[in-house]
């Protein structure tokens, strides 16, 4: 696994005081919070910061981390020392949040859980401070629930999908050292999930070491932006280009929908920006969403003699003044 320089992540010196660390965290959290931030890599940055702060805010974890020495560089290959955690007393009531172990995001190198959920942190963190390490909190009862995020594209949200999910679990090896192991499971996501919904995977959260029942894993859905459709709840909006004569005279046009193309009638006299509704053609659900079709009148270019001549004909035979409404207002 790769070493992580937590001081670098928070942009503080190794000698920084607890207050300086806290203020660096607050400043960065405000900037990179994934619910608020517009920074492109906000999610990853926030998670890295959160992991760094988790260690540096806690005097015991910070002292242990500092003992690794300052010679390590970010990204260097690293193995925890065999005597890791020796010499520390582990009292109750520390502010820590226990081990890693949530899901991993599909199609991403970064662990899932982009936001401030349970500590699904790096392998580096997991091996030093995670469940099973001397720093893990003792949990006598049932296992905890874990939370992770899952990215789903709109087409998959519409028809449902089966996805592979990598789950990380810290496991104690026979020699007493800790290993974060990954196992892959298949999950069928039913049709009609929307943004921010929770999907429960029973019993896939943290294991309960002493006979209690295991926690659940919750996946929070995130629907990826689609090039064609704008999603709002279960409704989708599509912009449909139409020719001027289709708008003026009315037409029957073929419109793409999530479920495949359908025919739609445009009434004569339609205008650019006008919205038509295809009821029930959004994401499935109770009730299903609708698809809105926003018309966009597209002009044919006057690029051939024929096209030019048609435009000239319109100019001479139509009594049309596009600026009629401006007359007499400011002249």
């Amino acid at each position, binding site marked *: 696994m790769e070493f992580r320089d937590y001081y670098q992540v928070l942009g503080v010196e190794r000698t920084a005081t607890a207050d300086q660390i806290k203020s660096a965290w607050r400043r960065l959290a405000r900037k990179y919070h994934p619910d*608020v931030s517009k920074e492109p890599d906000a999610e990853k940055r926030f998670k890295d910061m959160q992991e760094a702060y988790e260690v540096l805010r806690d005097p015991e974890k910070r002292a242990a981390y500092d003992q690794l020495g300052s010679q390590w560089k970010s990204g260097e290959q690293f193995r925890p020392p065999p005597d890791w955690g020796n010499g520390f007393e582990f009292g109750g009531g520390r502010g820590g949040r226990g081990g890693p172990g949530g899901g991993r995001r599909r199609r991403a190198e970064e662990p899932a859980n982009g936001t401030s959920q349970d500590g699904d942190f790096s392998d580096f963190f997991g091996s030093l401070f995670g469940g099973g390490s001397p720093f893990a909190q003792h949990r006598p009862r049932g296992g905890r629930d874990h939370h992770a995020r899952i990215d789903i594209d709109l087409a998959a949200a519409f028809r449902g999908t089966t996805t592979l999910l990598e789950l990380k679990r810290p496991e104690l090896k026979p020699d007493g050292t800790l290993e974060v192991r990954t196992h892959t*499971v298949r999950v069928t*996501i039913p049709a009609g999930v929307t943004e921010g919904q929770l999907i429960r995977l029973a019993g896939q959260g943290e294991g309960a070491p002493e006979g209690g029942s295991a926690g659940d894993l919750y996946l929070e859905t995130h629907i990826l932006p689609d090039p064609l459709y704008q999603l709002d709840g279960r409704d989708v909006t599509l912009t449909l280009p139409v020719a001027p004569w289709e708008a003026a005279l009315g037409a029957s046009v073929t419109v793409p929908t999530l479920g495949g193309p359908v025919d739609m009638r445009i009434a004569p006299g339609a205008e650019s920006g006008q919205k038509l509704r295809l009821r029930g053609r959004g994401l499935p659900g109770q009730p299903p969403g609708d698809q809105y079709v926003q018309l966009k009148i597209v002009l044919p270019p006057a690029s051939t003699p024929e096209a030019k001549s048609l435009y000239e004909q319109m100019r001479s035979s139509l009594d049309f003044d596009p600026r009629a409404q401006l007359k007499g207002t400011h002249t």
Partner: protein
Amino acid sequence: MSRTPPMLTAEVLTESHWIAVTQLCELCRLDLAAVEELAELGVVSPRQGRAADWQFPATVLPRLRIVSRLMRDLGVNVSGAVLALELLESQRALERRLRALEGLLAAER
């Protein structure tokens, strides 16, 4: 040698799922007092009765989880987090409208 990974049963929490306030608190990592304050602010509308007996449709979860994350990570209180949530929602709605309008203006390829 690759084996087919085991299939898990996924259960989506939709509007047909009603969850008890204790479970809501766990899922959103909020305490009961915060949920009561959210009810007072109209963010959730529990049915009558004691707060400990409240039930909510699972559709309230996404918003409450954002509120909770903002409170926890940015150190704002319930009112501040709700204010931020509502501003974020209105910003997203405006961005959706803006994108739709830009789609009308953009030249065809």
